[in-house]
């Protein structure tokens, strides 16, 4: 029963908001090229579904492709850092540089250096998504229980055993926290890069549809593409929240349920 209200409440809020929007636009007679009503947007979404769906798929591919690369890169480099403090001290500043680089400025440059537009977009989204995963995983690997480390030393565990059986599980909650952040950032990076640098032909995502609609003054279509983007962001968040719960619920504070069914 409680689960049902959990789900119904946000949906009800959205529906009420949409209704207010719809009636507000009609009552104030706002033209659809300025602020389209939800019904107009929905109509545009359906009418343009083939091109919007294809673009949505492309944006999803870039987002998750970059996320996958960010995860592998982040985990790999964090592991290397945990095994060699010297390497960490040497290369961590580079990672920080990546974090503070404004994608808006860098995207056009990357497009000049890299031939394939898709590759350039992947790189841009990766740059944005990489740092939180690296930083959080490095912290997580470091946060290993002191006594457990001693225990592993006592039993003469190899560095590989220590990494696999102790450090990695210890780091998992931190990694997942980083992943939740990076999921949304990867989407933003993919969209921003495409918006700033542009893309063409079949290799285009929702950002191109938004630009195109904006240039052609097709405002309802623009909103339809935006709605899909927002939906994607929400779905990503929900996906990683659920993943976190599945992996951590049985043991980590962050996901534990108290007797009243609320998370701590």
């Amino acid at each position: 029963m409680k689960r049902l209200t959990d789900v119904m409440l946000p949906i009800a809020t959205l529906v009420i908001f949409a209704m207010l929007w719809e009636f507000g636009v009609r009552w104030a007679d706002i033209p659809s090229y300025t602020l389209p009503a939800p019904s107009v947007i929905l109509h545009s979404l359906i009418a343009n579904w083939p091109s919007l769906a294809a673009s949505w798929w492309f944006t999803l591919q870039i987002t998750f492709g970059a996320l996958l690369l960010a995860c592998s890169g982040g985990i790999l480099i964090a592991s290397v850092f945990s095994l060699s403090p010297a390497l960490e001290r040497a290369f961590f500043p580079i990672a920080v540089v990546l974090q503070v680089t404004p994608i808006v400025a860098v995207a056009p440059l990357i497009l000049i250096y890299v031939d394939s537009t898709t590759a350039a977009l992947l790189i841009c989204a990766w740059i944005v998504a990489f740092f939180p995963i690296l930083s959080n995983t490095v912290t997580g690997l470091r946060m290993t229980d002191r006594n457990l480390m001693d225990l592993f030393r006592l039993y003469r565990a190899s560095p590989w055993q220590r990494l696999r059986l102790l450090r990695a599980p210890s780091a998992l909650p931190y990694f997942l926290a980083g992943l939740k952040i990076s999921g949304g950032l990867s989407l933003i990076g993919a969209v921003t890069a495409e918006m700033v640098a542009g893309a063409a032909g079949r290799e285009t995502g929702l950002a191109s549809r938004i630009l195109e609609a904006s240039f052609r003054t097709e405002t309802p279509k623009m909103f339809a593409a935006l709605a899909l983007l927002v939906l994607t962001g929400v779905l990503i968040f929900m996906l990683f929240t659920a993943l976190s719960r599945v992996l951590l619920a049985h043991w980590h504070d962050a996901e534990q349920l108290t007797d009243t069914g609320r998370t701590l």
Partner: protein
Amino acid sequence: MHHATAKPLVELREASKRFKSGTLALRDISLSIDAGEFVTLLGPSGCGKSTVLRMVAGLDSPSAGSVHAPALTTDKVSTAFVFQEATLMPWASVFDNVYLPLRLQGFAQREVKSRVFAALKSVGLEEFASSFPSQLSGGMRMRASIARALINDPKILLMDEPFAALDDFTRQKLNDDLLRWHQERAVATLFVTHNIAEAVFLSQRVLVMQARPGKIMHALRIDEPYPREPSFRTSMTFLNYCRELSVALERAMLTETSAR
């Protein structure tokens, strides 16, 4: 009773430990433990009891003097350590936690499944094999920690105030159980505590330490035979032992204040 003719399992000869910060934690500690003996280090907080334990475990090395212990040889691992917190891996089940030492030695799970269950049974946790540490009480977690310690039949068991965080009732129960396991496996035990009654009930020898720098300033032999019944706790001999240790402890704390 132990036999003086056999070579001691653990021997410290004038071992000292100075930390990087400059503090002299231990000065000229000399002690020996024979196979199967139960020895307790008793002393106030900060007297270096844990440091002695860590040196025997090979986790710290002395700045001067020598330490001989199974952990410092190249023989297969025969030292076990029980921390004050149960120190279980929270993401792993009780079974996986107890299996860990064997896993680190390279045993596959199916090879040693029965051994793990046997260990769980001996600490009374056989029904909680698939539970997770967060689902267990403090006492149960400590049992799991002990099961893990005993899984690879250690020659020496090192315990650092393992029952300090538990309530009195659970502590006494675990004291009884510990003696039972000690007898069943004939494992030498070096036990650290600041609880006098516990020291007397469990040990064959109690070494009283004073702090800063850590030194053994009193040794007491407790001749009560094993197994020790709960009635031992209320006997006159028990009380006398406790008094002697109490006096020694007071002296230990006095020297500390006067040394300031």
